[in-house]
């Protein structure tokens, strides 16, 4: 039992020191660092390194909903430093009603603290999803929407980013692996002072998600996935899936790739429109007049 305890402690230390080592060291070279830092026999450390390589189950497979939630909150706070919130309670409630209707019908209705939606006070055409379910849409993109169904199309796309954990996957793999290893090994030892390393990994993770949201955009694969699954989600709830085509066409006509915002961080809309049409297939358009008035009333002020 004692050997097992030390063995597991080494696994924990390995994860933490990898973080402290600045993420460039391999498991093998880190073993020497850990051995010298902890006084644990190097062979034992090396065997721990071998286990990490051969048994990835010692690391978490992904972040827990709680970890994802706290990561997402700090991502959201940083987004709100750049874009102030648009304080319009009736509009906020309207957006949340649309968003919740979609989120609850999604394949991942339960995140740690649920989905929540907020309008950003900017003309920039954009929408963001922080890990865990905090979703933002700009006044700029809402002004382009010609119907509730088009707002639903924008929100459905962002909800799928949360559902598929695209934000988490945007964290550079080596850092994500180190964080998962450190967090996965954390339970086995309370003796290792790993706070600093985890804090660094937390900050790196937040920065990587923000860079993706604000500068680089998700991968083409992630965007295609969000587009196509969103079509299914819209259909599931009863919104018009063709609204996705309409809002994307509008974005194609209005967005300027050299400006910050949606066009900079998303694939060329003409490609997306074709792929969304393919995802819609033979589905008939849905036309309902019952929601036009509330749409006009809710967006009257923006």
């Amino acid at each position, binding site marked *: 039992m004692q050997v097992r305890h030390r063995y597991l402690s080494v696994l924990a230390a390995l994860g933490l020191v990898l973080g402290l080592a600045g993420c460039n060291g391999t498991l093998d070279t880190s073993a020497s660092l850990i051995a010298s830092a902890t006084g644990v026999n190097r062979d034992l450390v090396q065997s721990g390194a071998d286990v990490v390589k051969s048994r990835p189950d010692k690391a978490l497979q992904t972040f827990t909903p709680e970890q994802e939630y706290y990561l997402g909150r700090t991502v959201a706070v940083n987004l709100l430093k750049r874009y102030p919130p648009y304080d319009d309670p009736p509009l906020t409630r309207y957006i949340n009603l649309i968003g919740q209707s979609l989120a609850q019908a999604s394949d991942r209705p339960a995140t740690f603290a649920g989905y929540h939606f907020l309008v950003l006070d900017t003309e920039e055409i954009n929408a963001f999803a922080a890990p865990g379910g905090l979703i933002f849409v700009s006044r700029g993109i809402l002004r382009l929407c010609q119907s509730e169904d088009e707002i639903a199309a924008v929100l459905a796309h962002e909800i799928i980013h949360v559902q598929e954990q695209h934000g988490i996957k945007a964290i550079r793999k080596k850092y994500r692996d180190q964080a998962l290893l450190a*967090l996965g090994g954390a339970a086995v030892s309370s003796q290792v002072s790993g706070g600093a390393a985890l804090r660094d990994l937390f900050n790196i993770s937040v920065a990587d998600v923000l860079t993706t949201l604000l500068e680089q955009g998700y991968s083409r694969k992630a965007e295609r996935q969000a587009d196509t699954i969103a079509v299914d989600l819209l259909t599931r709830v009863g919104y018009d899936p063709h609204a996705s085509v309409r809002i994307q066409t509008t974005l194609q006509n209005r967005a300027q790739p050299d400006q910050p915002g949606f066009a900079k961080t998303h694939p060329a809309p003409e490609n997306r429109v074709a792929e969304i049409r393919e995802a819609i297939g033979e589905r008939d358009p849905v036309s309902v007049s019952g929601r036009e008035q509330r749409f006009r009333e809710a967006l009257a002020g923006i």
Partner: protein
Amino acid sequence: MGVRTLGFIICCLAISATGWAAGKKSVQVRKGQMRQQPSFLAQVIKDLAYGERVEVISKNPPWFEIKDATGSTGWMHTSALTSKRIKLRRDNKSGKSQATSDEIALAGKGFTKEMESEINTSNPALDYLWVNHMEQIVISTSEIEQFLRQGGIQLTQGGV
């Protein structure tokens, strides 16, 4: 009682215990909604706390029919549940018990509320006020149902 009979009973007990254990799940979200039917528009019977253990009675993907510690039964979406056990730990400041995933029990040094506080202390410019405000916006199941009905929206899958 013969040795074979005893062995048979032990085997049955072992199989039964294994099956029971395999059917246990933990609520992995802050508020796990137990519903009357396997549908996102079904009435919420009760909310189960983070870390609470439940027994799975039956499955109707993506829903589990569950029984909680008090014997209440209902349906919960699979995304609210995990097979892992979640430990309770004590908050040193408030003295209250808090749930945390057992994977991150390194004296609260995971990606947790403590980490957020630490980050916020070193960077006071980060203002969580609006994020907290966002999280207070709650839309109930009946409000969603009413909103969809008023909008003339017809669910195509009866609410999964």
